[in-house]
């Protein structure tokens, strides 16, 4: 019996000819990631090991992106602790305000994660790099600490669900609508402990930004990782960014899957996830009476340049509703600069939106856009749990940049068709 794409990457990194689902393995890592929330805990744990150097200065990335620019004194102290650790250990990939971007957009952009890599990150959305054909998964701070010391992590080898995609998206429909639709179909634990492997002609038609969004939200279905095969678009993206050799993998033709789900992309509607779980999905058409107070466009899920272009297309020459605070945050400095050069930032500001420096802030209710009691937001982020963006009695509706931008104009959940 053959192996899935994820199993092949894991077998190679564990020095084994083959692995099977459920097996416990120790695998070598190509990159270990942490942020300003998870790294302080990892540093404390690392210090308990009692060694004075990390396994590889090039294979660790620390990105201060969550509560930065530092929102308060405690956050500033946390960032200082990880900055000092990075300096002491000579960690080459330490990024903060000025060159910092949201970690899961920044690492691919800088070529720090590549196809075929095995990556762990002390952040649940580390699964994003599956878009590049890498195995990447979120872990906790102790795993990060141990991996910084040894360059390894333990894994239970996952089985996989295969998603066979055909056709292409209708106008305005995107990867965000597809992944919300999938989570609505299989549930927030529908892929628990498993891989979500995407294949078929529908993938070829999909832009990298869509693939990043889809891989990013694998965790919202409980999955260990989401993964795409490597094609011309992947290689195009990686070209000029990769500074080291990489290997590409594909699933064996006789690989076994726990479930195969076929999806026709042309049947996917604009989709919204209602509070308080990402699985509470409905077509946007059925959500039109929900009045909102805030719109957030950005995050590791939808802060790519393609997302900003879509938002700008909807907002161009229009004004956002006076009752809707609209905050747009490009995921990285390079995306910010690109958006500026393309005139997108001008469109946003003229429409009455606030444009923020890259930060995870509003997505997790950290800062830069907190909701008051009873308020509602449409967000292109990834979670709508109780209290996720602020007060425990506030509400988050997850949607694509197109739906979020249209909703900002009307003041209630809307599709772009209503405003264009």
């Amino acid at each position: 019996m053959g192996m899935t794409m994820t199993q092949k990457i894991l077998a190679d990194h564990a020095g084994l000819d083959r692995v099977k689902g459920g097996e416990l393995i120790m695998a070598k890592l190509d990159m270990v990631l942490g942020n300003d929330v998870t790294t302080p805990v990892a540093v404390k744990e690392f210090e308990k090991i009692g060694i004075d150097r990390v396994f590889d200065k090039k294979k660790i990335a620390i990105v201060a992106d969550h509560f930065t620019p530092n929102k308060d004194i405690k956050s500033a102290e946390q960032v200082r602790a990880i900055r000092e650790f990075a300096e002491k250990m000579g960690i080459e990939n330490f990024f903060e305000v000025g060159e910092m971007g949201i970690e899961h957009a920044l690492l691919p952009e800088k070529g720090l994660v590549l196809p075929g890599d095995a990556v762990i990150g002390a952040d649940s959305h580390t699964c994003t790099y599956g878009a590049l054909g890498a195995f990447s998964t979120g872990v906790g701070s102790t795993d990060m600490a141990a991996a910084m010391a040894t360059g390894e992590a333990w894994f239970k080898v996952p089985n996989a669900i295969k998603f066979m995609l055909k056709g292409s998206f209708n106008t305005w429909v995107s990867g965000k609508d597809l992944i919300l639709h999938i989570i609505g179909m299989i549930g927030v634990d529908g892929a628990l402990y498993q891989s979500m492997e995407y294949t078929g002609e529908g993938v070829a038609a999909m832009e990298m930004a869509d693939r990043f969004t889809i891989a990013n939200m694998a965790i919202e279905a409980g999955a260990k990782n989401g993964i795409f095969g490597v094609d011309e678009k992947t290689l195009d993206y990686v070209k000029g960014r990769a500074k080291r050799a990489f290997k590409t993998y594909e699933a064996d033709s006789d690989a076994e899957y726990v479930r195969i789900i076929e999806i026709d992309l042309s049947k996917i509607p604009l989709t919204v996830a209602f509070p308080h779980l990402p699985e509470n999905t409905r077509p946007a058409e059925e959500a039109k009476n929900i009045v909102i107070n805030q719109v957030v466009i950005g995050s590791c899920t939808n802060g790519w340049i393609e997302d900003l272009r879509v938002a700008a297309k909807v907002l161009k020459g229009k004004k956002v509703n006076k009752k809707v605070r609209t905050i747009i945050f490009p995921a990285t400095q390079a995306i910010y600069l690109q958006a500026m050069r393309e005139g997108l930032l001008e469109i946003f500001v003229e429409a009455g939106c606030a444009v923020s420096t890259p930060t995870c802030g509003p997505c997790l209710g950290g800062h830069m856009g907190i909701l008051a009691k009873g308020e509602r937001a449409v967000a292109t982020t990834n979670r709508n749990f109780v209290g996720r963006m602020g007060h425990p009695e506030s509400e988050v509706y997850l949607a694509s940049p197109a739906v979020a931008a249209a909703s900002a104009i009307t003041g209630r959940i809307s599709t772009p068709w209503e405003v264009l």
Partner: protein
Amino acid sequence: MLTGKVLKYKDNVDTDVIIPARYLNTSDPKELAAHCMEDIDKEFVKRVKSGDIMVAGKNFGCGSSREHAPIAIKESGISCIIAETFARIFYRNSINIGLPILECPQAAREIEDGDKVTVDIKSGEIVNVTKGKKYQAQPFPPFMMELMEVGGLINYVKAKIAGKRA
């Protein structure tokens, strides 16, 4: 053998309600424990006693990778968590920090808030003393048991590195 009173929760308890992000500007276990479960059960910090056992439904600990969640629960005094299923990052974080955690769907469904329960981590046996009912959870595989026995991943790595040097 662990013995404690049960605090019971439902399906899909996420890490944002276990410890809201507004408290993540610290990693001090005591500060985190002071806000544990705040957005889902304001009474938790008042009710919980050292040795108590948490029981929950499906997908416990879903969402963020924040280790602050199992740290807050452990520091609150919870000695063990039993659930129908756990989200995978929460599961590995708990093992890594030495917080015992067992999957046992039947026990998780039947045990009620306030029941007195005993748990044998090694064998996976769960006894509901209040109701006089026994359950068998899948015991840990040897590697995970070893992690639990040495007190977590850091001690395991420490021993491994020391072994290499010796």
